[in-house]
């Protein structure tokens, strides 16, 4: 059974009289342990697909199963619980909590979403700080970190509660090329180390090479058939 299974997925946004058909019937499946990219030009529907997988948005048609759950049927509160229990997120703008240090940001999901006991929390945070290579900046607030360092913290935060799946919408768009490659390499290393599935989106062809499976989106449709391998 695939980790993510989408069939005939549609998403139409309606704002007033205007309706935008952002995703027009896509089928894909993502296996556990994959390192998968959605690529395509701006407006092609990458974020929309990732948001639906991440239970931040609901499909208007089709079925979408994530971790054997029909996520289209989840209510608001159920979706929040599902995300908290099974998913990790990395954002384009890092989105760290400004009043918390690097270590506290990583600890946040363990403290405020799941209720881990303090000893396990400390051990997990130390392990991740080490794994993403920012142990020396553990006590720094986000505004004292560089973009690359912030995204490392964000990756560690996404991994903190040991989710099956991490979704990263344009995780490198705000980074220079060298740093972007390092972050992608870091994510891959994390996949290797923890076995977490990573799904990310990008429109930067240079980092697409790192993905093991690529879905090309254009105008809301997958145009490379089922999973072109880079």
């Amino acid at each position: 059974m695939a980790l993510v299974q989408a069939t005939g997925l549609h998403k139409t946004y309606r704002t007033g009289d205007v309706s935008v058909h952002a995703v027009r019937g896509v089928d894909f499946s993502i296996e556990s342990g994959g390192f998968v990219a959605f690529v395509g030009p701006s407006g092609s529907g990458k974020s929309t697909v990732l948001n639906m997988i991440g239970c931040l948005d609901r499909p208007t048609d089709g079925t979408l199963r994530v971790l054997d759950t029909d996520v289209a049927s989840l209510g608001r509160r159920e979706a929040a619980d599902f995300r908290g229990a099974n998913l990790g997120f990395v954002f384009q703008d890092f989105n760290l909590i400004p009043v918390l240090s690097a270590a506290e940001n990583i600890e946040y999901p363990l403290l405020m979403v799941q209720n881990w006991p303090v000893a396990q929390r400390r051990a997990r945070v130390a392990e991740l700080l080490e794994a993403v290579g920012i142990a020396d900046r553990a006590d720094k607030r986000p505004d004292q970190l560089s973009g690359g360092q912030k995204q490392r913290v964000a990756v560690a935060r996404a991994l903190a509660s040991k989710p099956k799946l991490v979704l990263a919408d344009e995780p490198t768009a705000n980074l220079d090329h060298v740093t972007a490659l390092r972050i992608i390499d870091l994510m891959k290393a994390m996949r290797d180390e923890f076995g977490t599935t990573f799904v990310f989106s990008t429109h930067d062809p240079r980092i697409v090479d790192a993905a093991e499976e690529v879905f090309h989106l254009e105008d809301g449709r997958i145009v490379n058939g089922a999973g072109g391998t880079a």
Partner: protein
Amino acid sequence: MIRVLRLSARNLVRYWRRSLLTSGLIVLGMVAVLLFVAVSASFKQIMIGQITDSMLGHLQVHQRGYVASIENLPLNLNMKPELVARVEALLREMPEVEAITARLKFGAMLSDFDETTNIRLNGVEPEREAAAMPLLAGRLLDGEIRNGLLEPGALLLPELLARGMGVQVGDTVVLVATNVDGSVNGRTFLVQGVLDAVTGPGGRDGYLHIDDARALLRMDAPEVNQIAIRLQDPGQTERVARRLEQRLGDIVNPRGQPLLTVHTWDQLTPFANIARMIDLLDLFIRIMLVGIVLIAVMNVMIMSVYERVREIGTIAAIGTPPGRILLLFVGEGVLLGVVGTLVGMLISLGVVQLLNVWPLEFAFGRQEIVLAPALALGDILWVAAIVVAVAAAASLQPAWKAARMDPNTALRHV
């Protein structure tokens, strides 16, 4: 809970300037309210103390109809000796009663052989009057206390009257009174002392021995027209009044109506209205505090939520339960309230301490009033609880908005 509050506190520190401003506003409101409460309560207490402890007592018993015509100082509504004895026996059984004094109040003409004027007089038993009116002796401006209060044949005159007529302590004056049958009688008296005037009816009365009053009025039996009662605990006034009224209900006139009435001090003096006014002001200023806290906290919390939409989107996307997000923002509002309350409390207590070292003095009429403001623990806690509760209520709406935000929309917010 603690962890959420810790995060709330961090966010307050992050926007320390406006947190400080909002807390400062709450502090200001707290201090204003607590000082007003302390000073007005002290003023009220002193004024009421003057009235109840030097003139009225806490309760008074009269024959029905007497209070309505008290301005005329009638002599046909007196209580007969047997009735007085009955009432006094009943009062002695009540443990709440500390002291009682029976008076014969009447009007007379005062003459110093040169000028003549009207005067209201209280015929009193000196020892009992002094016991029931502990502040009366303190009003003596000139002359001295003798025989507990005054001697037979002596007169205590109100200051304004004595000054106006140029009468001094040691002078001889004549009192002329009309008795109940309309015949006139006069006697000479020695001025033993001059009394300071106080607010309220009876504050400008003279005093003489009750036996002299009866002789002047050619009264056969020792009648009185007023029994003033001092209670152990002034706070019990209303309750004791009701109980006493009930007990006196057995004493009826030939038509079966109760013969006697009980009045509390506040029914007998217009100052009670000033006291009620003070209570009303007290209420208004508390309502204002509620308004200040409500607007200040709500304003800052609405801003806080608006500025942090993306942050809210992030924590919601990560899976933070809505209840925790709500708590996070309510926590900020409550902490603002708590900090403001604590600082406000400390400053108020400090200022009240200072006011006791360098007291506020007022000239009220002819009296010097030295206020001794004090903050009752109950008042402090009450005001503190209101402030914190209002702060929580004010942050509830913005916090609710934050908790209900759709993470996707919030994350796209620019």
